[in-house]
């Protein structure tokens, strides 16, 4: 047995965690503030700014846009990412390496460069300021998560399972539907969750691709905070945080119940 961490180790670890999470958690009490300014700690708790958020059509529209964009970007990433991962699984190693590099490149290239490029292209093809344009831009960043998650899941599938199904007479499509997909489902769901959250809080590409018609929640928050310091921004942040936590909790629960029902080991 290795010795557990020392008291000093615990202290350092806790300090790092606090450093990482406290600023994030600060928005939660701030959102329940009843004064007109963001104050910490809040002097009195109220839902005043939540009412303000819900009463403002612009905030609601931004929330709706964000959800639409995230759902669409997730759907695009799942379909494209699944096909990419399945193709990579069968590709010769050299081709695989270059395709993986290509798929991962949006995470490596500075997002601001990608954003400027997308700005020009989206204006040119008329997708600027549309939900579809935003979703397609986000898909660049979401795709790697799906490809990687599904790729890892595919590595865990015995290739003989697919061969066995084929030998029993199943068409390639049927093998995919009845054997491969059920076996990689946990990876696919995990990838989809990452994709959704990535799109939902993406801000750089969104700033460049948002227009007056389609503006995501983070862009609206950024614009608001620039002109006035209002606790409504803290409300939006809290909602964002809650949604992120919910998505990952849901995935964890789904995976756990899946593992209890069946075993892929």
């Amino acid at each position, binding site marked *: 047995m290795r010795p557990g961490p020392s008291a000093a180790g615990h202290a350092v670890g806790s300090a790092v965690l606090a450093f990482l999470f406290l600023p994030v958690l600060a928005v939660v009490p701030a959102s329940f503030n009843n004064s007109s300014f963001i104050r910490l700690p809040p002097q009195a708790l109220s839902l005043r700014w939540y009412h303000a958020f819900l009463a403002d059509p612009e905030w609601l529209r931004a929330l709706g846009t964000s959800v639409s964009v995230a759902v669409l970007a997730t759907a695009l990433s799942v379909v494209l990412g699944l096909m990419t991962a399945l193709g990579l699984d069968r590709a010769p190693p050299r081709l695989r390496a270059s395709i993986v590099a290509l798929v991962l490149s949006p995470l490596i290239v500075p997002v601001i460069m990608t954003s400027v490029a997308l700005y020009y292209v989206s204006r040119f093809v008329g997708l600027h300021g549309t939900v579809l344009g935003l979703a397609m831009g986000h898909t660049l960043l979401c795709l790697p998560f799906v490809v990687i998650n599904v790729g890892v899941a595919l590595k865990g599938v015995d290739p003989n399972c697919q061969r*066995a199904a084929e030998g029993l*007479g199943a*068409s390639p499509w049927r093998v995919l539907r009845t054997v491969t997909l059920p076996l990689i489902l946990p990876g696919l769901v995990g990838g989809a969750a990452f994709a959704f959250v990535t799109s939902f809080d993406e801000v750089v590409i969104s700033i460049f691709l948002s227009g007056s018609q389609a503006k995501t929640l983070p862009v609206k928050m950024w614009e608001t905070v620039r002109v006035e310091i209002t606790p409504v921004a803290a409300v939006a942040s809290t909602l964002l945080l809650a949604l992120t936590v919910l998505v990952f909790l849901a995935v964890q629960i789904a995976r756990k119940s899946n593992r209890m029902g069946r075993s892929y080991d």
Partner: protein
Amino acid sequence: MPLEFHAIAKRYGNITALWPLTLSISAGEFLTLLGPSGSGKTTLLNIAAGYLDPDAGAVLIDGRDVTLLPARKRNMGMVFQSYALFPHLSVFENVAYGLRVRRRPAGEIRRRVEEALALVRLDGLADRAIRDLSGGQGQRVALARALVIDPAVLLMDEPLGALDRQLRKHMQLEIRRLHREFGRTTLYVTHDQEEALVMSDRIGITNEGRLEQLGTPRQLYERPGNAFVASFLGESNLLFGRVSERNGGWACLSLPDLGINLRGLVDVPLAVGDEAAALLRPEILRLRPDGGDGIAARIAETLYLGELIAFRLELPNKQELWSRRMATESWPSEGTEVRVGWQPEDIRVLPISANQTRE
């Protein structure tokens, strides 16, 4: 149904997995490909199943050329070493898979799956999850899944490799029983000689992408075609030398190390001067502690194997021979000087490799 391979060849880059290989398996026959790993036996099996395309040659099922047919249209029953059961489906659904693909009515599926499970003695386990099965049960499910579709040929790729010895022996007898009962054409791949001997009608010994020899277990054991076959099937002592005399069905092998000429039966074209090996199976050697004919040896080691006793004999030139006999009578102890004798008709003079007689 009969399965035929005509001049099947396969290369991976610079490595030749199969030299042009021709082999016919008759309807109802149980044929085993036996060879070390990398000898091409699994490659041939995968070509039969349609998982691998040969570079040249043809595969015929029931006289029909299926070389270009994808695996799903060949109606082969494949059993994998890893079982390759569908982990997300129950035992019942695993076995039913091929019938569902064939769109059989629900009633027929239920009946046939239950029959198949009863056949492999798994009745009552239909609703089990795959992860709750033991290794032996998993293998039976894999077998039922392959049999239930009424395949033209049953293909098995080292299906017992992952089981412990006791279970392996039991499953050998089970597979043999099923084959006896239904007489389904079976191509079985293994590197375990005991498996091959117990179950097969005929055995093909593979080595380095070639079929070294094909025959009944008894033919291969008693009349191996070369030293490789002799050493791969059964226990064997091989003494290497040159042919000094050739006379009809007999040859003399000169063994200068031991200072003797060994006479034995030969039925391959070996000429005087050729390098050759003499095969002395452990059970033909007679040990005479009281002297007499034969070569001098010392018992370096005795191994008690239950019903058998094995002796490691050291010859004057430090070469080793193994001898075996039933352990029902008393035996000489370690260190005893003995004379080793044999009957010349029990000895086979063999070419060292198949290449020698092929060329």
